[in-house]
């Protein structure tokens, strides 16, 4: 904790004095826009009807809101590594639009529904480590005169420099039901679906990372219900696919003797290492998990409660009721917790006490939108 405070302080100093150097510009254009670079952190989210909001983690103020073209999609967001460009899934999840968050300029747009197809993306949005490529998983259907075709889903690779009418550079077939994706240290992309796989975006080669639905456990475990509809984990470079499962201690179906478990597949994106573990017994609904940067065994989750869990003991160590239902959770490098989605306010919490320390009111409902934390360089 001391370390992360220090880190934040250094980052702030850097922003104040050396931003010009860090960004490689003669002057600091961001200062005029009320934004700080040098790794200063901003929270990004989308609200209905369709605005991207940029929130300063230091002041908790909305510094800028950009109108997103098209009807609200899922509000999924991916960011360039330098934190400058936020890619937003919009137009009923058929389009990706990239914003320069420093001025709301639209620098990238890809309408995925072309060539007579209708192409939907279920939150699958990620940017390559060098920022040059954008990845989506596309779920195409085609309408004919009196019927629909359901086509094979695919990974689409876009050149982020392609401008406002971007077309995929390459596509590769992938499984159905892919939701959350993320880029690993080696450039491969984690595909979260029935199982966790990794795809090489240059060859299309897919390798199993971790079996979930097809796990090889003995018959007393029910195949898990795994699901991720929100992107987060950037604060520690992780990818978490939560799941729910049941262990029959008596006959299958004997609820009296059964154990109900939350679990997760957690990937360290830098190393590609995967853990599969039951986290805590099921007591209440948790939509998303994030890991404490100071201790990998500590997880935070949110829904009706903000909860803190110690998975080494398989215990919920603390939980506080939230003002209403929330979906998404994220953390800045100061370990401050942000909880959003569902409604129009972001609830801000202290990670040690779970106490609510601030509330950020937005202009509309976040519903299914991501809450992302970016470091602006």
């Amino acid at each position, binding site marked *: 904790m001391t370390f992360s405070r220090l880190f934040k302080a250094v980052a702030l100093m850097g922003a104040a004095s050396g931003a010009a150097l860090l960004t490689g510009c003669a002057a600091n254009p961001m200062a005029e826009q009320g934004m700080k670079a040098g790794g200063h952190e901003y929270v990004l989210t989308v609200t209905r009807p369709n605005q991207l909001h940029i929130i300063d983690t230091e002041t908790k103020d909305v510094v800028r809101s950009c109108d997103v073209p098209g009807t609200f999609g899922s509000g999924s967001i991916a960011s360039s590594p330098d934190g400058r460009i936020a890619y937003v899934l919009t137009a009923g999840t058929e389009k990706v639009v990239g914003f320069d968050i420093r001025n709301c300029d639209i620098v990238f747009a890809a309408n995925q529904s072309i060539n007579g197809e*209708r192409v*939907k993306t*279920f939150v699958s949005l990620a940017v390559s480590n060098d920022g040059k490529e954008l990845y989506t998983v596309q*779920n195409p*259907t085609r*309408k004919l*005169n*009196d*019927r*629909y*075709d*359901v086509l094979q889903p695919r990974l689409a690779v876009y050149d982020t420099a392609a401008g406002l009418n971007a077309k995929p550079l390459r596509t590769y077939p992938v499984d*159905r*039901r892919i*939701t959350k994706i993320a880029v690993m240290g080696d450039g491969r992309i984690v595909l979260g679906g*029935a199982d966790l796989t990794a795809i090489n975006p240059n060859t299309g080669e897919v390798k199993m990372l971790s079996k979930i*639905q097809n796990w090889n456990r003995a018959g007393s475990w029910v*195949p*898990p*219900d*795994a*699901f991720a*509809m929100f992107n987060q984990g950037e604060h520690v470079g992780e990818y978490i696919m939560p799941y729910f499962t049941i262990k029959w201690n008596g006959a299958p179906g004997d609820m009296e003797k059964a154990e109900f478990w939350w679990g997760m597949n957690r990937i360290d994106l830098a190393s590609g290492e995967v853990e599969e573990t039951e986290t805590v017994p099921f007591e209440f609904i948790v939509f998303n998990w994030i890991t404490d940067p100071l201790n990998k065994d500590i997880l935070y989750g949110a829904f*009706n409660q903000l909860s803190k869990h110690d998975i080494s003991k398989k215990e919920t160590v603390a939980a506080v*009721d*939230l*003002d*209403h*239902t929330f979906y998404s959770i994220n953390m800045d490098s100061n370990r401050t917790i942000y909880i959003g989605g569902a409604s129009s306010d972001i609830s801000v919490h202290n990670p040690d006490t779970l106490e609510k320390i601030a509330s950020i009111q937005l202009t509309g409902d976040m519903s299914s939108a991501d809450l992302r934390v970016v470091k602006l360089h």
Partner: protein
Amino acid sequence: MNNNKSKRALLGGSALALLGAIAAPTTVSAMDGASVLQEKCLICHTRTGDPEAPYSRISQQRKTPEGWHMTINRMQRLNGLVISPQEKQAVIQYLADTQGLAPSETAPYRYVLEQQPNVVEQDIDPAYVEMCARCHSSARFGLQRRTEAEWKLHVNTHMAINPTTELHALARDRSWYDIALNDTAPKLAKDFNFHDAAWKKWQAAPKPELAGRWSVAGFLPEQGDYSATLTITPTSNNRFELTLDGHFVDGTALKGSGKAKLYAGYEWRAQLNVNGTKMRQVMAASEDGQQLTGRMYQVGRDEMGGEINAHVGTAIAGVSPAAIKQGAVQEITIMGSELKGNVSLGRGVSVEKVLTRDNDRIVVLARAQKNATVGARDVRVGQSRDQQALAVYDQVARVAVVPAESIARVGGNGGLVPKVQSTYRAQAFSAGPDGKAGTADDLNLGYMPANWSVAPFNETAEHDKDTKYAGSIDQQGIFTPGDAGLNPERKFSTNNLGNLKVVASMGEGDEQVSGDAHLLVTVPVYIKRAVQ
């Protein structure tokens, strides 16, 4: 030439359609559905060249008028079909008559056509429960017959118009699309087979004659039991006028009139005004033409309705209440039509006095002897007899609240969707010969008045004070849910949802008996379809 074709198609249709077209060829309602289909639908659909299945996608499905209505609505909403209300009506009539369902095919699923609230579908094949019957009723597909290719194409439609279908709970844990296509669709094609002989047989069968006078008995939640005479007058092919003339059990007059349509030779759909309230009747004529049975409910408030049964000719249609206690003196109303002659209530029950007498309703003061044997007896009025219509009992030993599982929906409060109430009746039983309540030999005493209240269903509901927020019940057994929207008074500012028990109690002191039913007060539905 177009005309010629359509006439041929019509000849191939049901005898009834043919008759109507000849009898009244110029009315709007007799607009030629076959030619409308060719004009409006073949803009996108194609001629296959196969005389057995001439039109792509259209010819290899059979369904109810409501089913066709839903499909054509989607053609308008999502596919760009432009069609006038009269043309649409004509196509629905044509398709429901020529590619409809036989009475035996709709019999298991009448509840969904009748818009019955609170139906818990029982014994659905496990292969369908999670794959299909989690978003809508199993009746929605149970009321269709398709070829395997058509079931498969419809799976594709689901995926295309609702792409997250495969991501929902109970779908994302399996290969939903592959299973739907490769396992569910072939099974549907067997269980709900397009070529089922029932339809051919029904098409060839003589159709019920509906014109004339019918003796009607029914129930409405706010007014109770009623009896009436239903008079049906044909106006043109498959079109009728109707009047309803009778009394509610308390003596209030019941007067109604309206119009009706008939599909597939037996599906009766009427829209009428009953004592100033707009109502709908959804009934099926029995194959022998002796009965019409179904449900009558308020337009826009589907839950406010009840069963309606019509019989040909004179008959006792019902007795209310249907039980009398040993030693008691009470009023009993006999309902029916052309009720002429002496009233007899069976052994041990005497008619003290006839209080009122109409053609359709007799109210008597009845006395049951102290030692009258417990059990049901026939009720007679002149030559008419209603078997086992009145029970003599010693004591109410059990109360069942009907329906046992129910849903009400919050609404109103400035929102677009009104509240959906739920209505209950208390059914009484005496213990029967074994003296034990809750056993197979319990004697059904019919519906009786009760004291109504709500209670928390479980500890969570108690803790969250659901009885305070979720709504209240009146002494007619009508539950009115709370307002829609978030309630800052509640934990997590949640809405006024609740998990309740609806409790009916009868009798006093030691003799008090009560029963309960489960009520879930839940969120409004924004999309309501003809086949839920």
